[in-house]
């Protein structure tokens, strides 16, 4: 049977089968790491492009306390921006969904705002808060998170079956209840897919903010300075730390999604 059939929902799989589902991923991981360590050097890929895995791990180990410290600083900035940007976006989406003509008129502009390369504003937030202040990174991360969450939440709050709303009207309940019982639960799948995007954007925002000058302890600065003095192993070790943090951040949001949307067919279907 080919893979297209997978889209159909399936019953929950037992643990044994679930573990077996990870086998292909682990095989790919093993092959990838092996190729990184042995194949790339054998093909003559230069150190400055991608040093062998063992050298990167060695560099990480030598600088571990410094790198983890830097990662933590950057992660805190990303998390702060994520919380700030996502919560503001959610509240604004509620307001716009409540006053629809207003929301409808503004929707195209919010979608267009999504298309603005906001990372380019990083030097400006540095000028606002001072290069060394974590707030310059928090704000840029927050702005990056803001628009996808706003647009997706608004779409989730408003893509409700008309009969759902009629049903609520037949119960003669106030708007507040319609939001709590129908619109907000309906929006959650949309909100979570935006939150997953936002978790990635927040990390990007924090690292880019660092790049334009931040405390030299932050991760973005570490990469740039390591590259400039040709310490490619250290640069890759820093990238490794950033990726691990990014994956962990994304993973936590995806896990929260699973908990919050346990009712949703997609979480039972075992896809993705």
């Amino acid at each position, binding site marked *: 049977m080919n893979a297209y059939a997978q889209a159909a*929902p399936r019953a929950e799989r037992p643990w044994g089968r679930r573990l077996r589902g990870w086998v292909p991923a682990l095989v790919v991981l093993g092959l990838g790491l092996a190729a990184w360590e042995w194949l790339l050097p054998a093909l003559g890929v230069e150190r400055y492009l991608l040093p062998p895995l063992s050298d990167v791990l060695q560099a990480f180990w030598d600088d571990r306390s410094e790198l983890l410290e830097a990662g933590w600083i950057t992660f805190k900035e990303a998390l702060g921006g994520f919380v700030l940007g996502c919560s503001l976006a959610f509240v604004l989406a509620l307001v716009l969904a409540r006053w629809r003509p207003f929301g409808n008129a503004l929707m195209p502009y919010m979608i267009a705002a999504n298309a603005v390369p906001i990372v380019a504003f990083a030097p400006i937030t540095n000028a606002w808060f001072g290069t060394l202040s974590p707030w310059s990174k928090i704000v840029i991360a927050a702005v990056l998170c803001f628009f996808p969450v706003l647009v997706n939440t608004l779409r989730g709050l408003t893509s409700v*079956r008309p*009969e*759902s709303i*009629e*049903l609520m*009207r*037949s*119960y*003669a*309940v106030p708007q507040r*209840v319609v939001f709590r*019982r*129908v619109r907000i*639960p309906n929006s*959650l799948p949309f909100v979570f897919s935006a939150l997953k995007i936002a978790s990635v954007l927040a990390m990007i925002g924090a690292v880019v903010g660092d790049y334009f000058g931040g405390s030299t302890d932050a991760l973005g600065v570490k990469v740039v300075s390591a590259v400039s003095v040709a310490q490619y192993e250290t640069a890759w070790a820093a990238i490794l730390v950033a990726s691990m943090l990014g994956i962990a951040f994304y993973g936590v949001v995806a896990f929260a999604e699973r908990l919050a*949307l346990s*009712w*949703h*067919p997609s979480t039972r279907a075992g896809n993705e």
Partner: protein
Amino acid sequence: MSTSEAVVSARSISKTFGKGGVNALQDIDLEVGQGEFISLIGPSGCGKSTLLRVIGDLVEPSSGEILVNGKSAHRARLDRDYGIVFQAAVLYDWRTVAKNIALPLELMGYDRATRAGRVRELLHLMELDGFEKHYPWQLSGGMQQRVSIARALSFSPALLLMDEPFGALDEMTRERLNVELLRIWAELGSTVIFVTHSISEAVYLSTRVVVMSPRPGRITSVVPIDLPQPRTFETREDPRFFELVTQVREALHAGGAEL
């Protein structure tokens, strides 16, 4: 029948959508008495769903007067005088079957114990025992619609508004649910207003069939159904049943419906 005991009383109701737009309803007069089972039948665009929504105060009529239980339809909605069932089950995906049925009770402030008891009764009534912990997407279309009916019945409204509730179901499921609906109607003594586009369904279920025609939407005739109660599977084979089906079909033709 005097107005005071009518459950629904519509006086020259008209409804126009948009400026100079479509005449969805024109000069509708309708009296529905306590305990009646009324079907509204007609081709698409005849305004039968709109009339149902006017009764439920979900759509405001452009002119005319509508009373439900002797008060304005608006007041009746605020008093939660009716339960409604749509063609789609409109269940909330994030709630289990039991919690979907309990939703109106929650909104109306019933305590947990009352809700649990009532849900248990309804699950039994709709033959859904054992499915209370399922999510809607795990049920077949027919079962979803039964949950939706249980939800409408949960707070024991005396009036039930049904907008083509079985329209999306297969013939066999539909006939079984028809029988169940009649059983519940007899058991609870409620009044039902039922929109359908199936002639046999309308004749089988109703005490009166209201025939409507489109452009503008109006009532062209009312056919009283004198089949004996309670109705069973044999009713469908009764010669009188076929006569009435023919009568309704002719009324629809006379109203200009292309069948």
